[in-house]
């Protein structure tokens, strides 16, 4: 049976959500080994087993948390030489990308980034990658020596616990971690102070574009969002214009969101924006131009002036809430 490894990133002993997705995919492809590194990593063992890991490597040295990428790469390279897995899956996170890219360079083995799926094909693997914001799908078959390294996008696979789940075999490593002097060290980590839901997790997003006319008109969106319990997003045009900071940007070079309801207000619907939000269950567009491309994507549309409609929308929500 093929050996499938999962790089199991943990935060204070809890696996990142993408790790459970990777394990779900991995166990459909072969026998799963998870590698969990950093302080409290052993706390994750049970969950890793529940999602299909048969074996877990654990190393709890703080260097895996405090030094970027290189300690994990050194250790993974050693373990991979020893066990020779067929496939190693990483989540497309900041650390996952750094570790996978460096490991691929170190082992001189193939790495496929940004994948949405891995399937069996003729005794090997075929990996599917969306490019150009999902408008073109590329299928790649690795020919290089094993293992193939694959970075899988978060939320590409739905995480499901294995049934029956079994307690994994655990191998705790304690060998010295040499970080060297020429390494990037984390000085501190800051939790983002968020008011309201995060864009990535919000069920409802109210998003504004150039059609709002001026930066101060974004206040209407903040008000509407507060009434709806929604997060506020923006198109690249208004971020470029300096109306909103980059963290609000949805689209190709910003965030990718999948809310239940996406309300696009004064957004024309350029491809760079729509690739970041077209996964929304229901898209509502408000725009004065009936020919705007956003209406090709939207489920419901209102053709009209955002400056009239949005205040009425806010009023309507308030009256329904009995305010």
């Amino acid at each position: 049976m093929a050996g499938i490894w999962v790089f199991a990133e943990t935060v204070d002993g809890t696996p990142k959500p993408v790790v459970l997705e990777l394990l779900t995919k991995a166990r459909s492809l072969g026998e799963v080994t998870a590698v969990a590194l950093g302080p409290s990593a052993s706390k994750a063992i049970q969950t890793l087993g529940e999602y299909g890991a048969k074996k877990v490597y654990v190393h709890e040295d703080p260097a895996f948390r405090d030094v970027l990428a290189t300690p994990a790469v050194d250790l993974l390279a050693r373990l991979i030489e020893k066990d020779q897995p067929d496939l190693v899956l990483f989540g497309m996170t900041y650390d996952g990308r750094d570790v996978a890219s460096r490991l691929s360079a170190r082992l001189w083995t193939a790495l496929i980034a940004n994948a949405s799926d891995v399937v069996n094909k003729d005794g090997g693997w075929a990996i599917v990658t969306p490019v150009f914001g999902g408008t073109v799908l590329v299928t790649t078959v690795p020919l290089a020596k094993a293992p193939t390294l694959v970075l899988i996008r978060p939320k590409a696979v739905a995480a499901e616990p294995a049934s029956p789940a079994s307690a994994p075999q655990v191998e705790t490593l304690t060998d010295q971690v040499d970080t060297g002097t020429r390494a990037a060290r984390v000085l501190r980590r800051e939790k983002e102070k968020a008011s309201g839901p995060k864009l990535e997790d919000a069920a409802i997003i109210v998003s504004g574009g150039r059609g709002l006319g001026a930066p101060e008109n974004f206040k209407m969106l903040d008000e509407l969002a507060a009434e709806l319990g929604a997060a506020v997003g923006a198109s690249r045009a208004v971020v470029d214009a300096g109306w909103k900071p980059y963290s609000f940007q949805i689209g190709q070079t910003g965030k990718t969101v999948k809310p239940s309801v996406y309300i696009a207000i004064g957004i024309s619907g350029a491809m760079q924006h729509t690739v970041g939000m077209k996964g929304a269950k229901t898209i509502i567009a408000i725009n004065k131009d009936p020919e705007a491309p956003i209406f090709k994507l939207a489920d419901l549309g209102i053709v009209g002036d955002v400056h009239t409609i949005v205040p009425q929308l806010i009023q309507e929500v308030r009256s329904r809430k009995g305010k």
Partner: protein
Amino acid sequence: MNVLVGIKRVPATAGQITLTPDGQEIDTRYLGFTVSPHEECAVEEAVRLIEKHGGSSTVLTLGPEAAIDQLREAMALGIERAMLLETDGREWDPVATAAAMVEAIEAERAAGRTYDVVMFGNESADSAGYQVGVRVADALDLPCVTGIKALEVTNGHATVRRQTESGWEVADVPLPAVLTVKEGINLPRYPSLPGRLKAKKKEIERSTPQWQDGGLEKIRLKLPVQVGHTVEILGKDGDPGVQVVELFQRLRLL
């Protein structure tokens, strides 16, 4: 200090993408070209570093002869030198691209030109491999921080900020280092007319690298099926108040 920035010529992605008849490449005949947004910011950041600390800046790309346009755009913003690693127009994978860039950087070192900061965009706008910078760092045995949104250089060290899934990380990295930049780190300036004119006359240093195989084979490109879709417009000629009420009834949002 000396700064090197790597950029990539990519199709302007707002255009309609079509494939070549054999399904192996993107048909680029009718596409406009540009530089990825993250890399525009890397170029701007390099220009700012030199404005602040003095030194020299160089832009490097691997691509077809036409990528000279993108090199000149970078020079119009204030980068001094430009190097083109010229290909036959095929899309080079990240392994081959990084190997060619490493070779170029080593040739620079042999010629007495070393770099304190080697900068890239976090990922390209087309293939988004996220790898070239990291691979270059590993081959040159340099530390690397990706996805940075703020950069401060003091005493041979860089302090960088990068966004993570849950917030921010502030890291210290000794120079020389490879840094990959994310859009939002700065707002790139527009090129001035004198800048453009000056860039037009500048020499581009050209060489032709050899492809080093990374062991990947592309099977095919596929355009996803376009699903026919119709929007329902709520009371186009009606009273906006009525439209809004109708909208809420449809959604039962509250």
